[in-house]
């Protein structure tokens, strides 16, 4: 019989701490009572009300679109930056780029949000563009801070990659661009996917930066949730939370499963 160590007790306690609040939300989303903390029997009625709330549905659609475009742009910028960070020789330009790209990782969100808003206001003042803040400005803001995460994920993959395959391709006459798309991209595709998914969830979740960067034209889901939650607990938000938790868990599990399978498949021929 294995002795239960202090650290493994703490691990289970910690996991309980992480999951219990979410479990409570899920349970209470089926609460019939309007008094949100008193149990009044099982009922799925809040889900019905949720799907009739046009404001929430619109916000979901806006958020999904912004998240899709932002994470795509973030992968492009982040991968280029990661490539510079891992494959370029030490230079002043490389050093400033790698500092700038990872800075949003540790920047308080209020500062990032405020600075971008002021930029947009100044640009509108000087060039008349962007005319009003909305999806486009949120897209710019999210692409910038998500690119930081993509750069970290992709550069760690690029670093551990076997360089000799890229070198062989170039020795055989492939251009660097062709080598990148034919050799490098397939090899780092799990990292690209992971970076994209991470960016997608970050963008979907962001409240502070979006509140600064957005205008009357684009209200994202976290903005709607926040303004409703500020007033207190709402059973409709519990239902929404349950759906978010379920879909994130599902996507996380699927992507983890697929990444594991892809990794196994990728590693096999090289090891042989």
């Amino acid at each position, binding site marked *: 019989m294995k002795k239960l160590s202090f650290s493994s007790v703490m691990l289970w306690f910690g996991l309980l701490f992480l999951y219990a609040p979410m479990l409570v939300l899920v349970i209470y989303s089926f609460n019939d009572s309007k008094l949100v903390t008193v149990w009044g029997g099982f009922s799925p009625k809040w889900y019905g009300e949720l799907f009739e709330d046009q404001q929430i549905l619109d916000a979901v659609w806006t958020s999904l679109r912004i998240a899709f475009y932002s994470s795509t742009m973030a992968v492009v910028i982040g991968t280029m930056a990661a490539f510079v960070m891992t494959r370029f020789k030490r230079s002043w330009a490389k050093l400033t780029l790698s500092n700038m790209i990872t800075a949003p990782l540790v920047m308080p969100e209020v*500062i990032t949000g*405020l600075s971008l808003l002021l930029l947009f*206001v100044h640009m509108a003042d000087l060039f008349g563009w962007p005319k009003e803040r909305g999806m486009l400005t949120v897209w710019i803001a999210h692409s910038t801070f998500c690119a930081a995460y993509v750069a970290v994920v992709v550069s760690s993959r690029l670093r551990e990659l076997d360089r000799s395959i890229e070198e062989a391709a170039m020795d055989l006459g492939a251009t660097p661009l062709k080598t990148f798309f034919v050799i490098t991209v397939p090899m780092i595709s799990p990292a690209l996917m992971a970076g994209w998914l991470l960016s997608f969830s970050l963008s979907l979740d962001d409240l502070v930066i979006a509140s600064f960067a957005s205008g009357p034209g684009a209200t994202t889901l976290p903005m709607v949730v926040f303004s409703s939650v500020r007033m207190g607990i709402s059973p409709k*938000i519990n239902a929404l939370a349950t759906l978010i938790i379920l879909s994130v868990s599902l996507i*996380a599990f699927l992507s*983890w499963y697929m990444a594991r399978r892809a990794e196994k498949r990728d590693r096999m021929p090289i090891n042989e």
Partner: protein
Amino acid sequence: MKIPTRLKWLKGRIWTIGIPYLWLLLFFALPFAIVLKLSFSTAAISIPPYEATFQYADNVLNVFLHFGNYLMLLDDSLYYMAYLSSLKMAFISTIGCLIIGYPMAYAIARAPARLQTVLLLLVMLPSWTSFLIRVYAWMGILSNTGIINSMLMWLGVISEPLQILNTNVAVYIGIIYAYLPFMILPLYATLVKLDMSLIEAASDLGSSRINTFWKITLPLSKSGVIAGSMLVFIPAVGEFVIPELLGGPDSLMIGRVLWQEFFNNRDWPVASSLAIVMLGLLIIPITLFHRYQARSLEKDL
């Protein structure tokens, strides 16, 4: 043949570095310059709501630098109290995350390799679901009629509900809860690389387990401790959502004050100077993070 290829190659390199460079210059560096500029301006009732810093008239460029915002931050106790209490709350929460997160990371690093990925996934999964939703979940749990209070009253420990929601305690719980995964990840990354034979050697030589921990395990995981602590401390200082939803009116935190100055008082210059001072306070932790991040975080995020 050789020269054009070389030229094309160089051009490709310039594009590769140029595109992200320009993007970041425009959307990261320039905005900070603007915040700095605006922090020396004054609020005005106009659109946009501040006085211009640079004025060009009759071939003369006038620069108006207004230090009033910074003097006011020093003068008005509200602001430095907010800074102090942000630093205090972020510090205590970081210690809390460390106390809970270190044993967790240690247990994961010592688990069988197959189990490790599953446990890490379990730790990270909550941080991929909505941050806002996770903070919101605590509103229901901590409220006067919430689960904790009902349970304690049912057990007869207390006769009246404890006021937990809208106090600083709730803010601590919220920050620790929200940032715990970010503490565990870098800690795990350093602990998993720890050479177990060193610990065995220490115990063979008669060192007690506690002594081994303080003398061997903890010093060897220093880079993970620092990276994880900074990953919690830095965003916690500027936190807005948690004090706003879980804290009371007296839970002053600088992110919240900045938000109020900006959105409620529409005083953009004061908000900018608050941001500049906050950044100044965070410079040391941010550089610390950058130094240790390379060692522990990059590999496993």
